[in-house]
């Protein structure tokens, strides 16, 4: 009875909460990871989704996030340099993969040759200035020597989520999106896609970092550890991230 009462009263103190800012492209896997994290550790992850640049501005202005899962590796490094993140806690939690995608089942071939054809008039990418997936898409376009032929067809989404929207509503016939948005268990869920070879762009390393407000929060430390564990890795692979 005493044991029961102590779990009741003190169990709550052990299970903590962690406010985590998560890059939009990581939405779907993070929901799974948060669920598994809560089941396995009893800690609760309060997930805020958004653009990494916006989180940077918020964190710089005192947002109480304990952990940042960024879409790039530059923002966490910058936060650490500016003294807003705990030094030595950065690591790559996922490596994003880029895919050329269309809602039409037969438009995209498995070598991306469609980019050299006149069979599309809008190509959606994420804003290369704002989103790492956009910068990677521009790199692919340059490497393939397509800059001149596609530049007048480019439309930009402010995030990879919006880029997905443009292609999904077929306002753009083609788009460079995150593989995680269109695949499940190694299969493309709808339309046609070319998984861009990783040799054509700089790896999209997505880094996590412990922010100052999370320094003494056991739940924050637990989440960072959990992200490097087998459960999280299995979820990442299912969603098409490279490890």
């Amino acid at each position: 009875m005493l044991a029961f009462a102590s779990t009741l009263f003190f169990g709550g103190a052990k299970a903590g909460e962690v406010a985590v800012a998560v890059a939009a492209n990581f939405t779907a896997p993070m929901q799974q990871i948060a669920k598994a994290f809560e089941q396995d550790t009893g800690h609760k992850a309060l997930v805020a989704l958004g653009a990494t640049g916006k989180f940077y501005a918020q964190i710089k202005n005192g947002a109480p996030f304990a952990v940042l899962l960024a879409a790039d590796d530059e923002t966490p490094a910058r936060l650490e340099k500016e003294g807003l993140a705990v030094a030595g806690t950065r690591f790559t939690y996922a490596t994003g993969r880029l895919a050329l995608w269309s809602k039409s089942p037969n438009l995209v071939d498995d070598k991306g040759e469609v980019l050299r054809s006149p069979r599309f008039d809008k190509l959606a990418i994420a804003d290369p200035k704002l989103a790492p997936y956009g910068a990677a898409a521009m790199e692919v376009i340059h490497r393939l020597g397509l800059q001149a032929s596609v530049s007048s067809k480019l439309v930009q989404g402010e995030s990879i989520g919006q880029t997905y929207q443009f292609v999904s509503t077929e306002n753009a016939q083609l788009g460079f999106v995150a593989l995680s948005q269109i695949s499940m268990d190694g299969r493309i869920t709808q339309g046609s896609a070319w998984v861009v070879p990783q040799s054509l762009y700089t790896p999209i390393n997505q880094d996590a970092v412990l922010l100052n407000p999370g320094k003494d929060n056991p739940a924050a430390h637990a989440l960072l550890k959990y992200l490097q564990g087998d459960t999280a890795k299995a979820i990442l692979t299912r969603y098409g991230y490279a490890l």
Partner: protein
Amino acid sequence: MNLSAQDVQAIALTLQLASVTTVLLLLLATPVAWWLAHTPSAWRVPVASLTALPLVLPPTVLGFYLLVALGPNGPIGQFTQLVGWGTLAFSFWGLVLGSVIYSLPFAVQPLVHAFEAMGPRPMEVAATLRASKWDAFFTVAVPLAKPGFVMAAMLSFAHTVGEFGVVLMIGGNIPDKTRVVSTQIYGHVEAMEYSQAHGLAGVMLVFSFVVLLGLSWLNRRADPRKKVGV
């Protein structure tokens, strides 16, 4: 101040978008407002609510519906393809369409108020003097409702300049075609170019204040009993 060539381009495009939108809105809102101000029809309240809808709907809702509707399988997209315009998303005219819908209440409501405030009397007098309905409308109603027109135009223009969510959803951020001031500021902030964001945001702040100041002044002139017009 720190304005780049792209910032200036965005300002020019914004002014162009707001001007075209304002002209179209006045043409569209005048008959709608006239009808709303005079009709005994039971449709009056539903139509008035419909025209006010953009006031309360989040721009992301409008933008999302527009994106779907403008697409090749959406109703607007099917129509524009049929008449040979292609699809309107990511084009200047797509933004015009979005802006007209987004700013509609800001044109309709001042006009409805102005037409209502006029009362039926001036038009009745004009009719007894054998002025045709059109003649009376242009020579009697329009001059009497002039403050309403000016306010509708200024509010539509200013509101379109401040438009963000709809443009973000259907624009595609193309320089010189769909990149307006608000999305350019957003881009600067997101890219952590805070000093450039400050420059452009300052321009917007001053512009908006001047417009509101002007509106307040016009309102006071139209109705001297008011202390503050907005």
